[in-house]
């Protein structure tokens, strides 16, 4: 098992390194920050001096070389915008997004299990079809639409919730709502699919013939079989929030890593873009390893080679 983890980590590191090189090159292709940091009417000399000061006028392989050397000393550079170390900017913003994800996923999973089981219990009944439809609606709603409509109804019109920002629990309601809809819908469909598959399989029919109640079958067999796909898909959704909550964070002024990275791209703050991308990628890799291990523990069929 330990060997498996180590091997996965090693693979991840290689992938991470490649990924990092890619980010490095791509980010630098977005343009010269000089245009954005100097006043609009700056002259070409000023822009050249600015580039030279940041080492951006060197050929890209030299820049990369210096970057790798800095990396080995754990120096990720300073934020062009704020003047503080880029990694601290990223590490400051990341927990806020992670916290959102940690609140959203359990809620989504719980709701999904409820809706999914309702849909699977009697798939062709009215209740079943309604639940299925509900799951589909949740899947199809864009997160930014929920966010904006939520602000319109609950903040502007009703005044129940604050419009944006961070603070007490009221500030969490709308962002969580916006982010939870799609994972709930997707997971509900996964739960439904897995449970239906179990409930209509031959061995279940045999158990029913033997007189075991449907409820017992649902809870003991169908649920258990649904667990694994839920974990896999849930993990993907979690990763999706970590890397993709940009839009919700923008609407609600939530200072998470998505917004930070987006802002840094717009501001050509290369160091922060790299640091943020690294933080997100590493956390997703770790998450994947964690999910794989959890999956393996729960599925007796899998063993580690």
């Amino acid at each position: 098992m330990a060997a498996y983890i180590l091997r996965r980590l090693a693979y991840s590191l290689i992938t991470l390194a490649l990924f990092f090189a890619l980010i490095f090159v791509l980010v630098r292709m977005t343009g010269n920050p000089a245009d954005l940091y100097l006043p609009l009417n700056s002259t070409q000399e000023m822009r050249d001096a600015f580039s030279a000061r940041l080492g951006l006028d060197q050929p890209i392989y030299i820049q990369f070389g210096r970057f790798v050397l800095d990396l080995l000393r754990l120096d990720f550079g300073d934020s062009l915008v704020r003047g503080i170390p880029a990694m601290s900017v990223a590490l400051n913003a990341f927990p806020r997004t992670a916290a959102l994800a940690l609140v959203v996923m359990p809620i989504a999973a719980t709701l999904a299990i409820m809706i999914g089981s309702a849909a699977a219990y009697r798939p062709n009944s009215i209740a079943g079809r309604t639940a299925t439809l509900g799951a589909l609606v949740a899947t199809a709603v864009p997160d930014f639409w929920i966010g904006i409509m939520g602000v319109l109804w609950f903040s502007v019109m009703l005044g129940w919730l604050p419009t944006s920002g961070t603070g007490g629990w009221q500030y969490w309601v709308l962002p969580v709502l916006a982010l939870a809809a799609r994972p709930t819908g997707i997971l509900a469909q996964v739960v439904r699919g897995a449970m239906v598959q179990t409930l209509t399989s031959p061995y279940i029919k045999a158990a029913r013939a033997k007189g075991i109640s449907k409820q017992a079958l649902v809870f003991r067999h169908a649920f258990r079989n649904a667990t694994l796909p839920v974990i896999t898909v849930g993990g993907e959704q979690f990763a999706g929030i970590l890397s993709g909550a940009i839009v919700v964070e923008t609407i609600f002024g939530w200072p998470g890593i998505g917004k930070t990275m987006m802002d840094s791209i717009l501001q050509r703050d290369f160091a922060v873009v790299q640091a943020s991308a690294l933080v997100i990628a590493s956390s997703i890799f770790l998450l994947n390893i964690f999910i794989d291990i959890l999956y393996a523990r729960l599925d007796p069929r899998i063993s580690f080679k």
Partner: protein
Amino acid sequence: MRNRLILPISLAVFMACAGTAPLAADDSIVVVLPEEPQSLELCESGSSIRRVTQHNVGEPLVQRDPDTQTLSEGLAVSWTQDGDTAWQFDIREGVSFHDGSALDAEAVATSLNRTWNEDLACGVAQQYFQGNTYSASAVDTMTVRIETDTLDAILPLRLSFLAISAPATSTTEKSAAPIGTGPYSFTEWVRGEHITLDRFEDYWGEAPQVAQVQYQWRQESAIRAAMVQTGEADLALSVASQDVLPEDRDTGRAVSFALPAVTLLRFDLVDPLEPLNDIRVRRAVNLAIDRQGFVDVVFDGQGSPANHVFSPSTIGYDETVPQWEYDPEEARRLIEEARADGVAVDNEIVIFGRLGVYENATESMELVAAMLNEVGLNVRVEMLALQAWLGVLRSSYEPGRPTNMMQQSHENVTGDAVFTFNPQYTASGPFSALRDDFVNEHVAAAQGLSGEERAEALREISHYLYTEVIPDAPIAVTSSTMMLSDAISYDPTPASFEEIVIGDIVLTP
């Protein structure tokens, strides 16, 4: 594995939950800005920074009245010109910085030289002190001497943009915790969340009513407006016209003010392409734009039609230049006349718009394009983000590019047209698409003049540009709207886009 994750996870949740504490006292206010400032360095000139610092944390040597442009005492109580290359300033007594150090000539000189230090790349130096070399020294305890290479007739005006920072400020790095002499001292900056300033009890001037101000930021104008409506904020900047309800204006919650900025379409006259090379077509463009309609749609009726690219209160504004009438018939006639002479008036003209230059930028260009298409031109719009727009700006006259006009919002807060002519119309100006000897020579000559001579010279250049050259289509003086909660009242000035003087805010009892 499970146990080891609990601690970091709960820490993460805790950190995320420890958000903004609500402001307790009644004399505290919340100001919501469109964006987070990039820094709080006093020598920077970006409006997002100056909104927070200027006149609140940092003060200049010379005060400038935003309405009349007259200069008066600031941290300097008097000044004289000494020959052609020097000025002397007497420093106000009894002023201290927020860290307790005293304001004297030495401190002022240090701060000035720091601002002008090229290695530090201060925005104020780059924007307002170009074309000359400056150095400051303390002649005695309270007198500062500033020496220049060449004559600078308007040095005091330039200095009104430069805030003095304490000697303790680093001379090699930009500062994130500014120390100035203003009525408010910097307390904290929680990145991504808010900035707090507290009233400075030892301020030399009149004590302001507001005891504490917290700045937050939201990208959406609708959210900013909603925050004032719900009481989450007291002052919201840059509220778009559609977010202002009629009752907001009636109750005085929404107040608009003219910016020292004009939105315009810039023509390319370096290597002009058809049909904009023909002056009749350029006139036609100007005649085809319904400027009042533009103001009504884009600025909710706040703002006024323009025929110069700077506001009428600027020195150099020529009253004898006629306002452009909205005359689509005449525009069509001119275009047909040009067509008859063989000018390719059907060539496609691209308007390169700039996203975010003001609220509703895209709609404004779509509106203009529709107006121009109405009179027979072939116009389409391409909206660009700032970086791309700058790229096109600098290369808009390279071979292979289409006939184009650039959407620009030109800002001139100084009240002196030289700060427009130089960047916008001279051969070396960064925004210039004009190579005209008359302009180059006359602008250079005007730099050395002062008083009525200067004004006359500048007006002559305006007249030439806007009646004989027609290098652009000035559309309207831009306006901005801010929203105020019931707790405060504030009279904005034309400088309020860049300077929110908290000391001028009155708390309603």
